[in-house]
């Protein structure tokens, strides 16, 4: 594990700007063709040990998509966020990599995310921006975020949520755009609906869904 830790030299950690829509330049200890299982015993042990920055352990065992998310967490070391929050986020990412968010069912990460948001909304928000836009579990993280009540999220800087939605909607990742529309559907706030009104999705099925969300919001606001 110690040797693995050295894999993540400071120069290997991409800058935040490189995370915009899935940087392909992230250093990969594993080849792209790796067929390792998504989760295995060493990773579980590493998690159980709850090492605050156990990135090396998970980087060793996790497939490509989660590594991008984990790298984004490593990047967070530079920010002033408590170890407990970073550690919780780390676990949330691992959990999402193991079990994605399923529509129609609660996810075990919902409550921990709400709790850390209420502890330090600004800190969590600063970390989530990179995580959501990084290749990996970003769309599931945004889907989770979309399940939190607006009053919890609005504890962070108001523009933060708006930036995340705006950047997600212009992403090349269909899943991320879809998660952004779902979040807007849940929140149904003026900013989100306004943003969605001017969004034209390149995927016909997603465009249809977005138009329906906007239409329903208009009907509801007329009725109110």
């Amino acid at each position, binding site marked *: 594990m110690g040797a693995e830790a050295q894999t993540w030299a400071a120069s290997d950690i991409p800058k935040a700007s490189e995370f915009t829509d899935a940087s392909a330049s992230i250093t990969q200890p594993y080849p792209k063709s790796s067929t390792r299982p998504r989760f295995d015993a060493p990773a579980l042990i590493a998690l159980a040990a709850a090492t605050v920055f156990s990135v090396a352990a998970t980087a060793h065992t996790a497939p490509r998509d989660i590594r991008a998310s984990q790298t984004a967490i490593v990047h967070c070391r530079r920010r002033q966020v408590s170890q407990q929050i970073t550690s919780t986020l780390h676990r949330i990412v691992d959990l999402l990599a193991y079990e994605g968010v399923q*529509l*129609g*069912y609660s996810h075990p990460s919902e409550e921990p995310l709400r709790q850390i948001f209420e502890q330090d909304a600004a800190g969590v928000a600063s970390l989530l921006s990179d995580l959501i836009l990084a290749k990996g579990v970003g769309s599931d993280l945004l889907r989770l975020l979309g399940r939190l009540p607006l009053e919890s999220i609005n504890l962070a800087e108001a523009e933060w949520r708006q930036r995340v939605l705006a950047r997600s909607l212009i992403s090349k990742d*269909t899943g991320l755009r*879809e998660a952004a529309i*779902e979040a807007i*559907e849940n929140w149904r706030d003026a900013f989100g609906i306004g943003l969605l009104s001017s969004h034209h999705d390149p995927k*016909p*099925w997603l465009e249809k869904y977005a138009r329906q*969300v906007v239409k329903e919001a208009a009907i509801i606001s007329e009725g109110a």
Partner: protein
Amino acid sequence: MLARMIKRSRWEEPRDKLDCDGVPADCITDLKTTGNTLSLWKAGSKEAVDLTAAVVAIAGTRTRLDPLELAWVEEDQIKKEKLPTAATPGRTPAEAHRTLHVDLVRLDHARLAKFASILSAALANEWHVKLTREQVRNYLVTAISKGTVPLAELPKALRDEVSSNTKE
């Protein structure tokens, strides 16, 4: 027609192009089998697709009111590919819909791939919809209003989300 819940974003063209012509493996992972079977719901005809049984069955057994994605395929295509099917009682809060359930049975990787090809072709025709939460709620409210689904049959958390709009 036969309908099934899918996750359309999994069926998108992969960013890293494959050097082969088949259905990408990521798409096939969206077809989760149980006991080598795959669940489908009867969905009317090509001219008049009716997703009611599928929506009520899937949304009515969930614990949250959320959007729902469905795709539908031609039953004839399944017969043409000689995929074995069995009429089995479906898990749904609507008693009257139970007979509208069909399982693809005795699936191996080759049969699953055939079904994936059929589904992929259906998606190319846009035989798919992503229903909003409100649309899903409307399906459930209508089924309850018509007496097809007793409100008490819905999971508790879902009942609370639906019942505010419902007159049984």
